[in-house]
C-alpha cells in the first residue's frame, strides 16, 4: 500500500506537470494508463480546500457548523463528479463512443484541478480583498486582472474537458459537441438546483 501510494503520488505529480505543459500527450497517457489511486491526491487537495472554504463561508469557529459545511461541500462535489462522468458516458454511448469508463473517470478527476485553483484563489481573495469592487481605477484594474485570471483557467479547463471526451470516449469533434449539447443542459439544471439550496453559486464542475 505504501509503495503504491508513492507510485501514485509520483504519477500524479508527473501528470499534473504534464497537464500544464503538454496537455494533449498527458491526457492520452492518463486515459490509457492512469490508475484510480492517483485521484487520492486530487481528493486530498480538494479536502484541504473544502476545510478552508468552510472556514471562510461560516466565518466563525463553530465545530458543528464547520463540519456540516465541510460534509455538504464534499457530498455536493462527489455527486457532481459522479453525475458529470455518468452523463458524459451515457451521452457518449448514444453517439457510439467506444472508450473506457475508467479512463474517462480518472481524466475527469484531473480536470477538477483548474476548478480547484480558481475556487481556492477566489476564496483567498475573498478574505484579502472582499467584494464589492468599486469603479475606482484600482477596482477596475483588479477586476480586469481577476477576469484575465479566471478566463485563462476557464480556457484551460475547456481544453482539458475537450481532451477528456476526445480520449476518454474516443470521439470526433462533431460527436463531442453532441455529447456536450446533451450533457450541459442537465448539468446546468443541476447547477441551478445547487445554487437554490445554497451549496455552490458557481458550479464546482
Amino acid at each position, binding site marked *: 500500500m505504501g509503495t503504491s501510494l508513492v507510485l501514485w503520488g509520483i504519477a500524479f505529480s508527473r501528470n499534473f506537470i504534464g497537464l500544464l505543459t503538454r496537455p494533449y500527450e498527458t491526457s492520452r497517457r492518463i486515459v490509457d494508463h492512469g490508475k484510480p489511486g492517483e485521484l487520492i491526491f486530487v481528493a486530498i487537495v480538494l479536502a484541504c480546500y473544502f476545510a478552508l472554504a468552510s472556514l471562510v463561508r461560516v466565518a466563525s469557529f463553530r465545530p458543528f457548523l464547520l463540519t456540516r459545511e465541510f460534509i455538504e461541500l464534499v457530498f455536493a462535489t462527489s455527486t457532481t463528479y459522479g453525475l458529470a462522468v455518468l452523463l458524459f458516458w451515457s451521452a457518449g454511448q448514444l453517439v457510439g463512443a467506444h472508450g473506457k469508463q475508467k479512463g474517462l473517470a480518472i481524466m475527469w478527476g484531473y480536470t477538477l484541478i483548474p476548478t480547484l485553483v480558481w475556487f481556492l484563489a*477566489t476564496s483567498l481573495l475573498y478574505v484579502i480583498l472582499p467584494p464589492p469592487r468599486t469603479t475606482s481605477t484600482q477596482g477596475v484594474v483588479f477586476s480586469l486582472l481577476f477576469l484575465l485570471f479566471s478566463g485563462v483557467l476557464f*480556457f484551460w479547463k475547456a481544453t482539458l474537458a475537450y481532451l477528456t471526451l476526445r480520449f476518454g470516449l474516443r470521439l470526433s*469533434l462533431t460527436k463531442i459537441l453532441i455529447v456536450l449539447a446533451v450533457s450541459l443542459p442537465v448539468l446546468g439544471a443541476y447547477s441551478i438546483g445547487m445554487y437554490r439550496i445554497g451549496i455552490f453559486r458557481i458550479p464546482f464542475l
Partner: protein
Amino acid sequence: MTTGTYQKFVKRWEEVTDLPPQTLGPLTPYYKALTRRLKVMPWPLLVIFSLLVVVGLYVLLGSAVTLIVSLLQRGF
C-alpha cells in the same frame, strides 16, 4: 531493433493511430494550426484568448465589469 523495443513501438503506434485525426473540411488547416499551439505549452494562447474576452467585456461594459467580478468573488 530488438523485439522488446519493436513491441513497444507497435503498442505505441496502435495507441496513437487508434483515434483517427480530426478534420473539419475546408477549416482543417486552421484547426490544425490552432490545436498545434494548444498541444504543447498552451499558456500563451490561453492568455491571448482570455485577454481578448476581457478587452471585449471592458469595451462592452466599461467599469461595470466590477459588478461581474463582485458576483464572481461571491461565487465560491
